[in-house]
């Protein structure tokens, strides 16, 4: 069972709630995914449509509510958003995102570390979104991060796990859960992350913009389950050479003169 910030999760699939075509589809996808952790963002109220509300579509008894600081370009903005999120949700959970460059949305490591230190002091359960940098992961966990969230590839890019080598090192060293976040575009990507030993994955775009988001949510749930089971079962080691699956003794090869 996965435990983060003292909370136990049965599902290792975390779900982002952005870009769903409707609240009804989002609700069904959350259901189908079996997730127990959903992320949300904070934005200014649309004054022309003030009654629009995502909260009514989310069951907070079933899912931990993980506000993010998306849109923050530095530690100061992220901290401001974190406090607003806590005031709005009453929850101390926080996905820390500090992304100064809108083109890549890559996280700023220095500002992320600064914000993590301050928000942990302020009593938040901080899950920082980070580049797949093993040294930074150690620094963040030392600063009190409840989990680390290395990226597979840029947010919303659907490119999968391009950072496998670094994520393996992060998993190897981590004393806190490792949640692979961003870029996971297919169930096979999620399965790969889990086979590598990730504790969970966070998926949004791949599900919310799928042709059938509800079916895709189910596919991701199965992939995460399969990948986790494979990791626990113990994967065989890789080799450049072939190793026959069938016995080499007692073959008819000599008689048939295959090798002559």
């Amino acid at each position, binding site marked *: 069972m996965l435990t983060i910030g003292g909370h136990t999760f049965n599902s290792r699939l975390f779900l982002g709630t*952005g870009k769903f075509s409707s609240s009804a589809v989002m609700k069904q996808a959350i259901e189908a995914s079996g997730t127990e952790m959903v992320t949300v*963002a904070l934005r*200014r*109220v649309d004054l022309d449509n003030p009654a629009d509300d*995502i*909260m009514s579509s989310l069951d907070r008894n079933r899912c931990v509510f993980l506000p*993010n600081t998306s849109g923050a370009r530095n530690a100061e903005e992220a901290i401001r958003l974190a406090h*607003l999120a806590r005031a709005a949700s009453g929850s101390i959970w926080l996905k820390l995102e500090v992304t100064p460059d809108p083109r890549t949305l890559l996280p700023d490591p220095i500002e992320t570390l600064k914000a993590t230190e301050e928000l942990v002091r302020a009593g938040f359960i901080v899950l920082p979104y980070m580049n797949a940098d093993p040294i930074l992961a150690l620094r963040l966990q030392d600063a009190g991060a409840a989990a680390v969230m290395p990226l597979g590839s840029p947010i919303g890019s659907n490119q999968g796990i391009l950072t496998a080598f670094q994520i393996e090192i992060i998993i190897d060293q981590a004393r806190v859960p490792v949640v692979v976040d961003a870029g996971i575009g297919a169930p096979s990507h999620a399965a790969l992350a889990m086979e590598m030993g990730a504790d969970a994955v966070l998926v*949004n775009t791949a599900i919310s913009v799928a042709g059938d988001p509800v079916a895709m949510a189910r596919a991701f749930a199965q992939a995460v389950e399969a990948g986790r089971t494979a990791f626990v079962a113990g994967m065989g080691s890789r080799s450049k050479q072939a190793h026959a699956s069938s016995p080499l003794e007692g073959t008819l090869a000599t008689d048939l003169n295959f090798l002559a």
Partner: protein
Amino acid sequence: MLIYLNGSPKTITDSKTVAGLLQDLAIPHALVVVELNKTILHPDSHAATVLKDNDQMEIIRFVGGG
């Protein structure tokens, strides 16, 4: 009187409270958090907080996001 609401100038009547403005805008209190001049306002103080000229007010709420 002029305030800045979600970054845009807005003219309001004098001695308007935060609660009064939310009501005018048909925004349910329970769904939003209000920040006034970069300080978060507790919902209990919406009714007693009177807006002043040049106040910067942000009305924030949760939306879908990753």
